[in-house]
């Protein structure tokens, strides 16, 4: 089920480190990548080389079913797992946060003339040795077609953010394309580099309905794997594309196996029926045991989401900062992390992932202190009434908490919270809903009291959180962003405006550091821990590299091989 576990977003949006300085001159908020520290798992691998030609197969299990294969239409993370294999981007972002050219010959910068100094003119040089899976050569026309398709009013494009600014697309040569932007928009670099997969003109220009055609269920791309077959509800088979323009692929086949039940999924990984447990990975309660399995590697990696309790700041008691602080103090965070999540995640105080350059180290640290929480509430005038529930001025300290029903760990967290908070005279009630309901109007229009959710706050990987915390971004008040907390702060607005205008990394770091302190002290959110995923890989399968800058860690199956 689609869930806001945080592995969403436009993926990490990154600017190649060498180009960072120039890039900031574009004028909008730009970002460096989130970098993953060299993981221990990389060292444990025996040195070996990929085979000369594709050998063997990989069975990747997913707990959701990929169903959307047109990469420009609305899809969820699990669909991206397929897009990464079948299609290519102009450039992508590696785990270290660098832009790496793919269909483009180089990443455009002001230095290499790919971008004008005002950021309005883009000139992209393309590779000329790339072929579609059907043998047709890939050209600049395909790029033009893809960008125009996104803006086609008949086409159900996923998102036109950034793309709608693109004008006057000119195909200069088969391997070069230029366009003009209506306004400077530096995140576009990342939008192109994360999910704007290029689709074939020669096939799609002939279809009568751009939203439903044979292509939608037998896509043709330039990626390392070509479409094999799909057995709906069961699996998808992809075959190696031997004419692939990049490194790999080193396996003959990839099978994405849909196993809707995480327990069954783990059982099959344990018995060796699947080689890799993809999206949603291994349930925390199985990780301990999984690590003892012979011939299996378990990799726990961070995601860029932050698990937190989202208060609706316009809802009665939550408007009082003292209440939020008391509630925060009364949470036994360590018990949640250690018992319910088996010690896997790291606690956090910020909305910024700890791997990001903009992460603020010096935030006040949470301490579990119910006595202090009680004192705080007493001092703020919240008096215990009937049944031990506090109230102040006729407002009772009681509220509901919601999350996606069926998420066991979150439902358990809720029950711990009930007990923790009852101790300080706050009454919480559970009101969970299926994903299709909770993330609709209930969340978007701030109809909740409080919600447990994991969110990737970054705009790409940029810490510009105007859409999340800006006072003009409240959907319930007609705003266009995602400020469903209804957080309003003049100081935050000032910092956000200032940060978006700064070009110096150090200055930006200072500004967003201040902002993180402000959000932490205001307790606009009650942060719990940074998102994580535990994935299993069969020993001998080399090349698995979690990428915090993508939404799915099986982004690079092209580099996987059997030792």
């Amino acid at each position: 089920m689609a869930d806001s576990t945080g592995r969403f977003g436009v993926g990490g949006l990154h600017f190649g480190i060498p180009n960072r300085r120039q890039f900031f001159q574009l004028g909008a908020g730009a970002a460096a990548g989130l970098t993953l520290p060299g993981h221990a798992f990389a060292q444990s691998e025996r040195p070996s080389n990929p085979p000369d030609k594709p050998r063997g197969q990989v069975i990747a299990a997913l707990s959701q079913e990929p169903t959307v294969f047109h990469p420009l239409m609305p899809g969820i993370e699990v669909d991206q797992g397929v897009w990464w294999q079948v299609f290519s981007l102009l450039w992508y972002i590696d785990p270290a946060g660098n832009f790496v050219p793919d269909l483009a010959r180089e990443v455009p910068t002001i230095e290499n003339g790919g971008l004008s100094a005002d950021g309005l003119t883009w000139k992209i040089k393309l590779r000329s040795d790339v072929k579609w899976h059907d043998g047709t050569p890939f050209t600049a026309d395909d790029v033009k077609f893809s960008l125009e398709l996104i803006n086609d009013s008949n086409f159900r494009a996923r998102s036109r953010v950034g793309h709608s600014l693109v004008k006057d697309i000119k195909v200069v040569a088969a391997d070069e394309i230029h366009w003009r932007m209506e306004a400077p928009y530096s995140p576009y670099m990342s939008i192109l580099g994360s999910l704007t997969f290029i689709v074939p003109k020669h096939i799609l220009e002939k279809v009568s309905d751009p939203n439903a055609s044979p292509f939608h269920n037998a896509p043709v791309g330039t990626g390392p794997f070509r479409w094999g077959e799909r057995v709906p509800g069961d699996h998808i088979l992809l075959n190696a594309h031997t004419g692939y323009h990049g490194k790999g692929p080193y396996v003959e086949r990839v099978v994405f196996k849909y196993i809707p039940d995480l327990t069954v999924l783990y059982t099959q990984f344990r018995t060796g029926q699947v080689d890799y447990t993809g999206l949603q990975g291994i349930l925390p309660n199985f990780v301990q045991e999984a690590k003892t399995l012979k011939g299996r590697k378990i990799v726990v990696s961070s995601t860029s989401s932050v698990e937190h309790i989202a208060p609706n700041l316009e809802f009665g008691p939550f408007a009082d900062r003292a209440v939020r602080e008391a509630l925060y103090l009364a949470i036994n965070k360590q018990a949640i992390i250690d018992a319910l999540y088996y010690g896997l995640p790291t606690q956090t105080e910020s909305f910024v992932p700890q791997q990001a350059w903009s992460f603020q180290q010096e935030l006040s640290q949470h301490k579990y202190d119910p006595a202090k929480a009680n004192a705080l509430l007493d001092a703020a005038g919240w008096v215990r009434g009937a049944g031990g529930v506090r109230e102040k001025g006729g407002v009772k300290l009681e509220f509901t908490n919601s999350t996606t029903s069926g998420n066991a760990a979150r439902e358990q967290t809720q029950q711990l919270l009930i007990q923790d908070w009852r101790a300080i005279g706050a009454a919480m009630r559970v009101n969970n809903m299926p994903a299709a309901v909770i993330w609709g109007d209930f969340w978007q229009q701030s109809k909740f009291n409080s919600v447990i959710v994991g969110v990737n706050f970054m705009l790409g990987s940029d810490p510009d959180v105007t859409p999340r915390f800006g006072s003009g971004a409240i959907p319930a008040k007609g705003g266009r962003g995602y400020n469903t907390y209804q957080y309003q702060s003049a100081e935050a607005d000032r910092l956000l405006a200032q940060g978006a205008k700064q070009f110096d990394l150090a200055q930006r770091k200072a500004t967003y550091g201040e902002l993180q302190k402000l959000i932490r002290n205001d307790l606009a959110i009650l942060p719990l821990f940074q998102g994580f995923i535990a994935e299993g890989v069969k020993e001998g399968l080399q090349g698995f590299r979690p990428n915090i800058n993508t939404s799915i860690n099986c982004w690079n199956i092209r580099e996987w091989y059997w030792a």
Partner: protein
Amino acid sequence: MARYVVNRLAQAIMLLVIVSAIGFAILHLAPGGPLSQFAASAQMTQEDLDRVTRQLGLDRPLPIQYLDWFGRMLKGDWGRSYRDGEAVLSVISSHLGATLELMATATIIAVLLGCWIGILGALRRYSLFDTLATVGAMIALSIPTFWFGLVTIYVFSVKLGWLPAGNRETVGDGSLLDLLHHLIAPAMVLALVETAMWGRFMRSSMLEVINQDYIRTARAKGMPEWRILTVHALRNALLPMITVAGLQFPTLLGGALVAETVFTWPGMGRLFLDSIGYRDYPVVMGILMFSATMVLIGSLLADILYAVVDPRIRVG
């Protein structure tokens, strides 16, 4: 007879119209929508969501949407899945095979085993076998199917390691043996309730028959017992079973949904659950209409067949 059939058909079609209206209303009035899953992410802004809602025609008044859907359905166009863009009928048919495989296997087991138990129970009434069978059938009817499935997984997959914990086949294998291996547990679980049903029906049907005058007459005439059984009793006792087969269909389909969920079986039940979860309206409507049609055809056929084989039934 022809008039009867035409009459029943007309009624069935009217029922389908009511079913479609009820189903459509329930689905579309439910909170949430097909785009909520995207709203959870920052991939699509509110503006994008509003645009796609418009493009899907989901912003129109409900009655208009219903009439539009209904009109298309009459022309054989059941719409396309919001998830993979495939035509609804092809989505259903691609999941149907797995479900039919499960249902057919379970039914065969249930009919054979159930009839055997029922007949034997009726012939040796109040014997230990009959008592055990009666109590056993009642317990079988009372066990939650999914729980029985979980226990089966625990015993045969987790503890003994004899059977796979789910799925229809091992990826890349798919041989007959492999398919059968995967089929055993879910078919067994689904067959449990069915067997109990068939056993109970068969027993009472058989009891009714062997107490009829013509059986007593035959017996009085000194006809050998096995001949009485096969020629008279069994034939007449099996007649009402035709109705059972028709009326059992909804239960069977419901049971299949549960068994598919427990054993991650890639069939219609799974599809239905997923489609409800994603609010894939066209597919959910398609499955509701499809199953309602099957249910109606089942009961219609049962009635007609029964009328044909049993001349005592007056049709009109």
